[in-house]
């Protein structure tokens, strides 16, 4: 769900980036954050809550609320709303607290 036309803004989405989300190959663009690239592909659930395992999505999108934490390239608790997407990144939904490597 990318914005195609906008009366004010132009989005320079040129270079495609491939990444892996839960074992599945997805595409985003250079300049996307991980959360934005996932959202553009319709992925809203980024993790599960610590105790009740309720679905979690982002809330603030600017790195304040920690609702978007995921495991990225094996590192737990990455704030995906402010972390840029990179080629070949392995992104996983995080259950619980995550494991410190």
């Amino acid at each position, binding site marked *: *769900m*990318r*914005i*195609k*036309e*906008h*009366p*004010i*803004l132009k*989005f320079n*989405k040129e270079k495609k980036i491939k990444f892996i989300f839960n074992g599945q190959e997805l595409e985003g663009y250079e*300049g*996307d*954050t991980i959360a*934005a690239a996932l*959202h*553009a592909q319709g992925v*809203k*659930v*980024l993790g599960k*809550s610590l105790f009740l395992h*309720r*679905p*979690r*999505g*982002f*809330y*603030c*999108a*600017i*790195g*304040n*609320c920690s609702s978007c934490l995921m495991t990225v390239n094996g590192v737990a608790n990455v704030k995906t*709303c*402010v972390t*840029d997407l990179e080629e070949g990144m392995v992104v996983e939904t995080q259950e619980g607290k995550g494991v410190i490597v």
Partner: protein
Amino acid sequence: MKQAEIVVIGGGPAGLCAAMSAAKSGAGVLIIDRNKSLGGQLVKQTHMFFGSEKQYASTRGIDIPEILLKELAKYKDKVEIKTNSTAVGFYEDGVITVLEKEDKYYKVEPKAVVVATGAYEKFLSFPNNDLPGIYGAGAVQTLMNVHGVKPGNRVLMVGAGNIGLIVSYQLMQAGVKVAAILDAAPKIGGYLVHASKIRRMGVPILTSHTVKEAIGKDFLEKAVVCKVDEKFNPIPGTEITFDVDVMCISVGLTPLNELLAMRGCRMKYVPQLSGLVPVRDENYETTVENIFVAGDASGVEEASAAMVEGYLAGLCAAAKIGYKPDDFYERRKDYMNQLNNLRSGPAARHILAGLDQIRR
């Protein structure tokens, strides 16, 4: 340990203006910002600003960082910029701990500090309010206007203040349907010029309404709203269900200023300024010497006021450590007058009432 004359924490409208003002007086400035580029939340404000020319009225928010950075570049031999850097600690010894790119820590010892860390979005309590699809209005603005991604297909906007109204309009600009705008208050909080524009586009604004519950399994599928009485209690039998996949929470901001509390500045809860704010004098110096505050971190207002507070705090911080320009009193008076003008309308009455409670 890194030495600095003035450290400005936060490179949004307040921080950039503070840095510029201090550098103009001749002080060396270090700007620390956790984002990859400066400008704070201006980078998603596609609307034209209100206020007066001095605060870039009629300019789109997204264009202001460039103007400010160009101005700041005039003092580039005085200013050092550290992006991707978060100030994570600030204690009694006055040393700031910075985390750079999530993996490198270092310490900075400043002579004076301007904390311009902004604000964060408030939340609202209702059953299932944690479902994905329920986002801060500012978050949706970031997703759309910075990343070019639509938040969903149909949105319910909760809050008819300026942010709620402006983001609703921006959603429609991005091609997203807005089902309705709610506000628990009996009156629209934002400017009527925004509200009229939205109503003309066929979006109902339901005052005296709140969210009763959100419905959905993995993400938001429906939202149930209801009317409230004058004491904000839900009125049974007034429920309306909206088929929406996005709900935007736009119920205000609250100052983000834990660093000041950590440093030992006296804080006070002032509802009119939207939360816990530092006690300060008219120069925006807190109760800890040489620690200044500016922008939303000092109480939630508009970006225009944040910029002027930045200029004032930067000027006064520089003067405190020995960089007092010949036109100090003129500049100070000019900034204070600008703030008074910005706060002269009826919409700013609560700000003035709030400021009365925290003046040192």
